[in-house]
């Protein structure tokens, strides 16, 4: 039977215009990390856009209107699905697009269309909804192990507070030095903070959103928002850029109204605490460090200065920059859930990050994303270049 569903169903008006507005100039390819490591232009933004335009023409073009929608070319659909899932959704292409296409938002919505057509997600990504339904997290790990293995005994969590901390699944299960650093620093600031019990701190929805599987989002978000509301929270702090991104950009729409609390990335909270003297970094660090901007933190929500402020406030430190940093940062390879399927691409991208950090003679590579942290550490195994990798709060917590 013909699938007559319109290819524009999941897109906003702006996104349909964006697809039309691509001039096919190819400027974006110079900034695409996947192009860098695969050299395959089939994965490129203009190719993806060209393919999707053909799909729209088949179901929504003038001919389709006059004579009924046609079936999109199946081979092209499969090629497209692979290409759109191989992308890390880092958004560097959009940042460098002469037309200004917001690709960081466009690709996830095109993925959603693929899911609706049974062509996405790819590989293990398809297991995410069942894992979250079963355990509350995409790793299908027991809730009992969410905090226990890393939570420092000396840190006290209030039952209710204006401030809450959300650890996030990747931090809690895969990048524990990072979340441990977070709570140690929050504790050192001295303001009481609360957390949801481990079985209530479920996935923020990002892994589902980014792979185009939106069905469980409403349940998860409502559960979390109500949980924090019940604890009287006015400020929700999180260190994971992906969680922070979906919380700020999508939670209000998914929840159906403005959130009853504001969202802050941990570096925003900590830089303010340093500025106001609530947190003092007494220990010296005579090192050159290089900070990698996570795509969903810099391009995603514009948190660029605060991590640098935190780092620069460490006595004795020298902060170096990657060639591409801030809004223009290069993906370390972990984004868009592509790392779970296109493992070799992710490792190659991670190694590019390591190589540049080493070439710049940094003593340490500072990361601020649990996915980057896990994958870049993995990329370093067996690699010719080695560097010490530290999460930003892991670093700060060791200096107070």
């Amino acid at each position, binding site marked *: 039977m013909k699938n007559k569903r319109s290819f524009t169903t999941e897109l906003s*008006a702006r996104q349909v*215009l964006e697809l039309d507005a691509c001039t096919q100039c190819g*400027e974006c390819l110079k900034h695409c990390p996947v192009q860098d490591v695969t050299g395959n232009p089939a994965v490129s933004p203009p190719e993806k856009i060209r393919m999707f335009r053909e799909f729209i023409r088949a179901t929504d073009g003038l001919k389709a209107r006059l004579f009924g929608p046609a079936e999109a070319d199946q081979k092209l659909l499969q090629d497209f699905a692979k290409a759109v899932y191989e992308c890390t959704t880092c958004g560097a292409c959009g940042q460098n697009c*002469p037309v*200004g296409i917001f690709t960081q938002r466009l690709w996830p919505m095109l993925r959603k269309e693929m899911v609706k057509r049974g062509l996405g997600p790819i590989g293990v990504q398809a297991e995410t909804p069942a894992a979250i339904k079963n355990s509350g997290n995409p790793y299908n790990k027991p809730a009992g192990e969410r905090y226990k293995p890393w939570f420092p005994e000396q840190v006290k969590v209030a039952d209710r507070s204006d401030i809450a901390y959300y650890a996030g699944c990747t931090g809690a299960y895969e990048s524990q030095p990072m979340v441990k650093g977070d709570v140690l620093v929050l504790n050192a600031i001295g303001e009481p903070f609360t957390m949801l019990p481990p079985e209530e701190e479920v996935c923020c929805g990002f892994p589902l959103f980014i792979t185009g599987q939106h069905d469980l989002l409403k349940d998860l978000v409502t559960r979390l928002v109500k949980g924090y509301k019940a604890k009287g929270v006015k400020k929700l702090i999180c260190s994971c850029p992906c969680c922070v991104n979906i919380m700020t950009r999508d939670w209000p729409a998914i929840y159906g109204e*403005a959130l009853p609390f*504001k969202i802050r990335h941990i570096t925003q909270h900590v830089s303010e605490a340093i500025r106001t003297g609530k947190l003092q970094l007494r220990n010296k660090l005579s090192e050159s460090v290089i900070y990698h901007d996570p795509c969903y933190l810099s391009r995603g929500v*514009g*948190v660029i200065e605060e991590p640098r402020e935190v780092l620069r406030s460490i006595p004795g430190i020298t902060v170096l920059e990657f060639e591409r940093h801030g809004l223009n940062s290069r993906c370390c390879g972990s984004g868009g859930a592509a790392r779970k399927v296109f493992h070799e691409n992710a490792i190659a991208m991670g190694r590019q990050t390591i190589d540049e950090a080493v070439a710049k003679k940094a003593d340490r590579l500072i990361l601020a994303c649990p996915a980057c942290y896990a994958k870049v550490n993995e990329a370093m195994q067996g690699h010719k270049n080695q560097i010490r990798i530290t999460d930003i709060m892991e670093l700060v917590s060791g200096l107070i």
Partner: protein
Amino acid sequence: MEKGHSIIHMGKILIVAAYAVYAAFWLRFIGHALVWWKVSQRLDNRSLARPHLKLKACALTVLDVVLLGRVFIVNTALWIVEWVFHASFLLVVLRHLRFFLDPVPDWVWWLQTPGLIAGYVLPFALLYILVIRLLTKLEKYAAPANLFLLGLVLAISSIGVVMNTLFTPDLVDVKLFIFGIVHFAPAAAPGSVLFLLHFCLVLVLLLFLPTHIFTAPLVMLEARKREQALRLVIHEK
């Protein structure tokens, strides 16, 4: 005599082709507009924080459109030539209005010399862009559609230069022919093969005219609004 007949036939064919291309252009445009209209009816509730229109965003968008500001940011080496290409293309198109209008407005007369200079510059700008796209390692990708359009405009503009310098067609005939098409009162085609080729290629260009010329300015405006609103995402909310 023989030649005269074939030119008259050719003229008739070209007139039919011109009307067909004109109709196809509008059909294509309507096809796109229907999609835009359909999606514009959709309530975009994906984000509750829709950026508002700010004067600064509008001003920057005007710069983006008029000076290709975003190209300047992402590829300065290509920017100046891209800008020269777009500006000279526009001037050449405006210069050609003298064939479409009667009486010819003063401003079209004023644009004749700048338009003539632009006509000579245009092929060189296009050649530069093509060389960059095809021969340099800086460009990782050259879309066939993009190359086709660049090649087409290069051919049209080069023929234009040749006609202007070496084999000038009878301009009165040209005006009568074009004016006849515009006013649905067909006249005989000029007896210049180069002109006929030039005209045919322009029809092909119209057929493949990219719709980004309509949508890109709107997307540029959205991009500026989004950039201005970035601080509203997590800093000032």
